[in-house]
């Protein structure tokens, strides 16, 4: 698959402060989460992708082209949702989205038609003629998404798209993003909300204090962790514990009667049933404890000696 984004040793300085420090990553496509606490450098990274902040080192390639020479034609393939504001007071939704469509090259009539379409798509068809300053925070986020979509980009850079949204609105926004990713668009989502990344993204990049702490597919990452299971055992406990220890598993009996089993990487869950059978008992319950992204995030911070996640 062709790489949509490639960053090699990217550095961005704001005076003496290093906003990004030797950031290297690559994105093939799909939905990718850029996760990090406030002040981690997520917004700077997105602005660097759009050549909106000057690099003090490194290279960024967007769809095979150097971002510093990011020609206008290439910008027509990128949609950007800024974190804050990004809408013009005094204009209604259709006028604003159509204006941005026109700037992105759509003829006047096509831009207006397209504005209506994308506003309907993001669920703002009822409010499209209202002035944008009367929009709620959630409606503004949807409006910004519509503006980012009006010219039909292949790559969407979303900077905190669910900021200030209520739970229902957040879910709908993530559904829209998921739908766009399913339609073949590359969605690069910057957020500090772990749940958003978990819901939407197949891959995640963790950023803190301007550095990439980790980056991988969430599935691979989860598979790389020890597997946790909760079981309810009916039978001689000592025999079961002994069999588990013999198999090299950790055991943590819980107060609710369940037993947590921690299997090493690569061990198949089927082995638990085999051991239970050999120990002369029955497993009444067998629950897989999924390692959450939060655990992975905290582990990544811990591994890199970062104690202040700021979340």
């Amino acid at each position: 698959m062709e790489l949509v984004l490639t960053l090699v040793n990217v550095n961005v300085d704001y005076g003496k402060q290093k906003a990004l420090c030797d950031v290297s990553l690559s994105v093939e496509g799909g939905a990718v989460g850029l996760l990090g606490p406030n002040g981690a450098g997520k917004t700077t990274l997105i602005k660097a992708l759009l050549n909106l902040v000057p690099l003090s080192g490194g290279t960024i390639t967007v769809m095979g082209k150097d971002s510093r020479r990011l020609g206008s034609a290439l910008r027509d393939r990128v949609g950007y949702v800024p974190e804050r504001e990004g809408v013009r007071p005094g204009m209604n939704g259709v006028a604003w989205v159509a204006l941005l469509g026109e700037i992105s090259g759509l003829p006047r009539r096509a831009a207006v038609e397209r504005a209506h379409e994308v506003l309907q798509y993001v669920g703002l068809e009822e409010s499209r003629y209202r002035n944008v300053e009367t929009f709620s925070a959630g409606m503004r986020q949807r409006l910004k998404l519509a503006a980012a979509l009006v010219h039909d980009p292949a790559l969407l850079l979303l900077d905190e798209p669910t900021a200030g949204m209520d739970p229902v609105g957040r879910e709908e926004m993530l559904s829209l993003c998921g739908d766009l990713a399913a339609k073949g668009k590359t969605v690069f989502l910057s957020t500090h909300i772990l749940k958003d990344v978990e819901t939407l993204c197949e891959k995640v990049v963790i950023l803190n204090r301007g550095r990439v702490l980790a980056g991988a597919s969430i599935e691979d990452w989860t598979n790389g962790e020890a597997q946790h299971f909760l079981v309810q055992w009916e039978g001689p406990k000592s025999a079961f514990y002994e069999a588990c220890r013999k198999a090299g598993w950790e055991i943590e009996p819980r107060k609710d009667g369940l037993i947590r089993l921690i299997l090493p990487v690569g061990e198949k869950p089927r082995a638990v049933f085999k051991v239970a059978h050999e120990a002369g008992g029955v497993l009444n319950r067998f629950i897989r404890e999924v390692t959450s992204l939060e655990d992975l995030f905290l582990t990544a911070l811990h591994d890199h000696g970062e104690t202040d996640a700021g979340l």
Partner: protein
Amino acid sequence: MPVYEQGYEDYSGPRRSLKLRWLPLFRDELTPFLKKRRFIILLMLALVPWLYGIALTFLHTQLGDGSGMKEFIAKLPVVDEKLFAMLLSNGWDLFLLFIVVIWVGSGLIARDRRDKTLEVFLGRALSPVQYLWAKGLTLGLFLAVFSLLPAFVLVVFQVGLTGDPWWLISHSRVVWGTLLYSVLANGSMVLFVLALSSLSRSPRVAGLLFIGIVFLGDMGCGILYLITKSPTVWFFSTAKEVSILADRCLGVPVSAHLALSTPFSILFFLLMAGGGAGVLALRFSGRRVLR
């Protein structure tokens, strides 16, 4: 029904040339002002002094031979370079021009910085040069109402009422002088105001900066002139420099109390335009304007 089920359609229609992407932004800046009645009245008021020129043309060409008025009309100024220079730099129009500069110019970039729409525009297929061109052209067009537009109308009246197209040849300096004045004065004013607007997130602050520099500069020069009686102190007076520029462009002798040497006047407008362009280049090339 989840909202996304309403369906997303790809766009496969035509796209406008990359070179014309500034056009929608220009239109978007222009139209809100044209819808404001008070702004239109302000522009109309700028044309009032030029009615004097049209009246003079009318009197000279239509009533000049009338026996009762012949002597009176003969004493009136004729429509020539001197009249154009006077009309181009009359105090009434300069006052209105400064109001328009503050009203339109101060918010051109500051508003986009405040609303974070600047990064939205520059994140699209719109180069900083195209962005600045759209903004500058908006202000430039309104400033042309104070010079190019009424001058053109007066020339049309003069040629039309005299029925003498040779007037244009004998007074060709009226045409190119006005054009030169308009480009120099308006161009440098536009660059200067855009630079001020790029320095702040608040249109009000940018406007106050302009007022501070222009009006306080004029006031300071006036006080210095009272003390020193030296014409060189007018160097930092925008109003006086505009007046001198109009005289120079139209080949009219400059009043003695304003008689700065021509290089000084040129230097003033070079400083204004160059300084403005320099600030804009620094702010936009390093993307500092986005912070």
